[in-house]
């Protein structure tokens, strides 16, 4: 009772809830699901861009891309740590991803097929992610909000890098320009869908907003994203593949066309281009690494029970 009132007060005053504070079971559950889903997305999100590390067309781009994919692993770490403060272990979350029980952002079931896709993922996918994540820096749960601050800083860097890749391509040879346009054509729709279904089909959003986890509705964030990328696309000299896209003077926003929600739900349900491949890649890495993790654990146990002498040796 006291706990509930304190929690309620923190929320009303828009203050942070910390791990030791009392919180409703559903708040905890919602956060664990959301944070771990976000962490899983970073982990699976390493794959599409990762598949271009070996073929990046210049050493500078290779270096930037490696650093970026590695940052995603780092984001995964922050986020798993934030979720762990809610009492769910990293291994448990891994297991949920491994078995396919946990979800991750559906966009990563699409391939990065060309080098331009690496640019489009940075510009559009990371761009949508930031639009989503900036308000999450103020999420009511402290560790989550603080993790998002670190993530957002790096993401906005990634978005700029993606935009630069596309800018270089769209100002390059005809073939490069075409490659850039194709990538934008493929990623525009799925990127807009990253904000989730339209508000009237998104039943859980209300509760998340009441808890100050989510700050804006899916459609509000989607609109914000569209408004951001239209002028950026113009600066790139690339076309967004939406004939209905135009400035609405009255609303002060860009109107945009209907999205293919059948495709979206089909991908969520497992029928995206690469759902099985993404999970199989993750599982193979876990399986192949099992002996290493076992060895590390066995070694640590031996060290712990050994005499001070060997502790000294290994120091």
């Amino acid at each position, binding site marked *: 009772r006291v706990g509930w009132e304190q929690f309620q007060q923190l929320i009303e005053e828009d203050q942070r809830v910390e791990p030791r504070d009392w919180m409703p079971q559903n708040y905890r559950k919602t956060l664990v699901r959301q944070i771990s889903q976000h962490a899983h997305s970073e*982990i699976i999100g390493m794959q599409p861009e990762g598949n271009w590390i070996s073929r990046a*067309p210049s050493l500078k781009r290779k270096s930037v891309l*490696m650093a970026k994919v*590695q940052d995603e692993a780092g984001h995964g770490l922050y986020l798993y740590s934030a979720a762990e403060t809610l009492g769910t272990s990293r291994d448990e979350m891994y297991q949920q991803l491994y078995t396919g029980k946990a979800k991750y952002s559906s966009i990563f079931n699409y391939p990065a097929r060309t080098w331009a896709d690496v640019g489009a993922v940075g510009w559009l996918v990371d761009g949508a992610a930031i639009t989503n994540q900036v308000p999450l820096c103020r999420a009511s749960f402290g560790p989550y909000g603080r993790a998002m601050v670190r993530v957002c800083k790096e993401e906005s860097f990634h978005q700029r890098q993606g935009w630069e890749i596309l800018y270089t391509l769209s100002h390059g040879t005809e*073939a490069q320009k075409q490659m850039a346009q194709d990538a934008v054509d493929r990623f525009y729709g799925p990127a807009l869908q990253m904000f989730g279904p339209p508000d009237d089909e998104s039943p859980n959003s209300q509760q998340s907003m009441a808890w100050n986890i989510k700050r804006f509705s899916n459609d509000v964030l989607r609109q914000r994203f569209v408004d951001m990328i239209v002028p950026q696309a113009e600066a790139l000299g690339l076309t967004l593949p939406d004939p209905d896209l135009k400035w609405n003077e009255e609303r002060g926003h860009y109107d945009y066309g209907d999205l293919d929600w059948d495709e979206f739900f089909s991908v969520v349900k497992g029928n995206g281009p690469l759902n099985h491949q993404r999970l199989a890649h993750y599982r193979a890495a876990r399986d192949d690494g099992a*002996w290493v993790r076992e*060895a590390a654990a066995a070694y640590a146990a031996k060290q712990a029970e050994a005499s001070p002498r060997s502790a000294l040796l290994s120091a």
Partner: protein
Amino acid sequence: SDETARYALLLGDDCLILAQRLGHWISRAPELEEDIALGNIALDLLGHARFFLTYAGSAWGKTEDDLAYFRSEEEFRSCRLVEQENGDFGRTIARQLLFSFYTHELYQRLVRSADTTLAAIADKALKEVDYHQDHAAQWLLRLGGGTDESKRRMQEGLESVWPYLEELFADVEPTPTLAEQEVAVLPSSLRDAVLTRLSSIIEESGLEVPASKGAFGADRSGRFSENRGFILAEMQVLARQHPGATW
């Protein structure tokens, strides 16, 4: 000079190819922390490669990318050690162990090179290689002292890369000439120190120093390996599809 450039190229090729190999681990490592660690090491090595190749290219009016993407298999000078397949984590650690112990010894001396650019690159790289050495050594101890399985795999990893250790100490041109001018470090002069340190850490890990005396063909020509062609086919494919393009 042309000779110094060829020396820088040789040093850079080793780093570039190893970075290429290591980059494959990102998203495939045994633990998230290792995705990051191996990624870091790959990034460092790529950085070293870029310094060396840029410096080499400056003598010939070429960019780092000209050298990385538009040389043929025959023109690369990488050693076979870095060209070895990743294999399992144990083999990758074995390869890292040999290469980081070798480069640590090398850069420690190269910082005193009469060529100030090479000295500066070595100085910068040395700090990072310090970490690479430590990373590999820690894993060697863990895997050597972990489970029976890890011990077996780590030993097999050492056996598989050890034949290519000797090539690192081969005094191939232009190194001997440059060593006389105190620009380069004579590879053979590193041999005892590297072997002693490697043997000592391997013994500490409870594993055995492999018996291999070194695979025939230690001349960095690539003539005695089947790996380089596959590595370059993948690394260069996009750049070569768009010659002259900017990225």
